[in-house]
């Protein structure tokens, strides 16, 4: 293993980490408001395909990113409408959303398979910072989405912990009826959290087709949406911890394709089990500890709120 390939691994770790972080952050926001959305994979696919199509049609990567975020938010709103609005089971609706998203993405993208990308998000150069050894290429020559992910993480962390909006949002996820009594609209809070989550998942998908693998193919998301769902638990619903987890899981994604070049005789398939196995372990540890301390999961996660049934 030489220096260049190690740097390459770390660059990919950060970029896959950002990809996972965006989607996981979206899921975190929705779950904090009390809505489990298992449709991440579908929203990512929709973001990926709409970004690619918009890139080809309009040749503007930023417009493509925006369209992907709007599409993700729109798809997520279907989940919001059914679970928050009609009180349907979140698990069932979320899985249906994954099926719908993957199906729609395949349908919309079928004429774009194998096309050259019309727009790409090129790495940002930070002047002398980008020239630094190691740190430069790994942190200061990444695509803009990486910095957006970092910014989104900090913003989400601050909004959730320091603002009235964040407090109301978390309250909706802990105890909907008391949030309602306090005069906040549980419906409005939850719907906007779900839509925001969809926009972030859409951005994550856009990062795939505008930068990481700038092309479209069916099944491009390859289960990364499920890793994002796992990450939220792995990070115990905290934006910071989810960020570290994203780097760790991003590392396994980056390492997977490089095992052979490093001359390591270990199955990349077995390696790709790691995020899920680690999440299961963490979940067990959290649960054992939770018997002494209160659990960090939002108390009303997965529960529909209907005033009449209060």
């Amino acid at each position: 293993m030489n220096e260049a390939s190690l740097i390459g691994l770390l660059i990919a770790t950060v970029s896959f980490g950002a990809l996972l972080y965006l989607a996981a952050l979206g899921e975190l926001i929705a779950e904090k408001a009390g809505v489990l959305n298992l449709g991440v994979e579908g929203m990512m696919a929709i973001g990926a395909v709409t970004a690619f199509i918009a890139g080809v049609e309009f040749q503007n990567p930023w417009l493509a990113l925006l369209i992907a975020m709007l599409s993700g938010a729109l798809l997520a709103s279907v989940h919001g409408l059914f679970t928050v609005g009609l009180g349907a089971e979140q698990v069932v609706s979320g899985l249906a959303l994954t099926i719908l998203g993957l199906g729609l993405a395949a349908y919309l993208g079928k004429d774009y398979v194998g096309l050259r990308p019309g727009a790409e998000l090129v790495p940002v150069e930070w002047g002398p910072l980008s020239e630094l050894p190691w740190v430069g290429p790994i942190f200061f020559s990444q695509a803009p989405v990486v910095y957006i992910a970092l910014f989104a993480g900090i913003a989400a962390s601050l909004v959730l912990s320091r603002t009235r909006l964040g407090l109301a949002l978390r309250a909706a996820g802990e105890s909907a009826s008391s949030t309602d009594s306090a005069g906040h609209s549980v419906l409005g809070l939850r719907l906007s959290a779900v839509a925001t989550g969809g926009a972030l998942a859409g951005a994550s998908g856009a990062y795939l087709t505008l930068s990481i693998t700038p092309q479209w193919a069916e099944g491009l998301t390859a289960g990364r949406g499920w890793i994002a769902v796992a990450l939220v638990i792995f990070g115990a619903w905290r934006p910071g911890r989810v960020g570290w987890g994203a780097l760790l899981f991003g590392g396994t994604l980056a390492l997977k394709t490089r095992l052979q070049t490093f001359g390591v005789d270990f199955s990349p398939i077995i390696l790709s089990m790691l995020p899920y196995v680690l999440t299961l372990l963490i979940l067990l540890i959290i649960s054992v500890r939770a018997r002494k301390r209160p659990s960090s999961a939002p108390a009303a996660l997965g529960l529909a709120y209907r005033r009449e049934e209060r």
Partner: protein
Amino acid sequence: MRRIRLRLREHPLPGGQPVAFGIGLAIALFVGTLLLLGAGHDPLKIYSRMFDASLGGPDAWSITLNRAIPLGLAGLAVAVAGSMGLWNIGAEGQIIAGAIAASWVARIGGSWPGLLLILMMLVAAVAGGALLALGPAMARAKLGVNEIITTLMLNEVALRLVQWLIHGPWKDPDSFNFPLAPMLPDQARLPTLFGRAHFGLLIAAAVIIVISVAVRYTAWGYELRIAGSSEATARYSGISLPKKVLAVLVLSGAIAGLAGGVELTGTTDRLTESISNGFGFAGIIVAALALMRPSGVAAVAILFGAVQIGGQSIQTLGVSSSVSTILQAFILFGAIGAGVFSRYAIALEKDALRTTEEVQS
């Protein structure tokens, strides 16, 4: 001032669910028509092909029923857990685990007589599915760990396990480097009943009937449903919840594992990466449309099987397979929506509070 309000009914409308399913189907057909027109196809021609291929005769029915076997068993697995208010999202992985275990038996018992071999394979499949569900079951029963996430994670683990097996240790040397396990020995295949329908149909039907009766009419099933409706009531009546949770989730995994074994010996004849083919996730949808009642899964599984088989058949007409995927999603969303409305009454109500102007006038 009058306004339209949704009021929760005390009892859902009788027969609401079949109607909801019908509405879902209608919505899906409407959306499908738009998609087909958008892609320049003749919807009538496509729909009649879908019907002919799935329900248009004994042969078509046999193919649809073959598809309904894994869908029904997976749906049953989810519904059993659902009767107690538990979510088994891991049927996908448990199907794989069952198929892996059955393949393992076929590898060591290649020279056994057919009946013994198939029987042992199915027993192994049941054990494999149960084993994969055991971890989440114990974590839920002893530590209160949410079973949704644990079963979901194990899906991905099981998927990678089967990928690893057929890319590596179990790869068929004669498969021209395709990731495929060797074909099962001839005597390990389930006999055919009619058309293409295989013996798994009777196995699935028997299991669905036994479990439905057990949940509906036995003391065990009664306790299960009590525990599902209210934990507190269950505790007061002396039902041991952890034991029940453990038993039900393991049973759920076992049924899903059986689905994997039956699919292997009945349909695919070899272990492949896509042995579970989304059946586990579709099973959740089947169970949800059957309102988590084990007795309802068979009918929903057959209808869903017909949609899937019909969807596959139109690919020869140049229609993207994604149209069928989208149709399934819309059936589900349509049925969920309609199902919710069957529990509500639409009422024109007078506002309890009057506005200031109303008071003044």
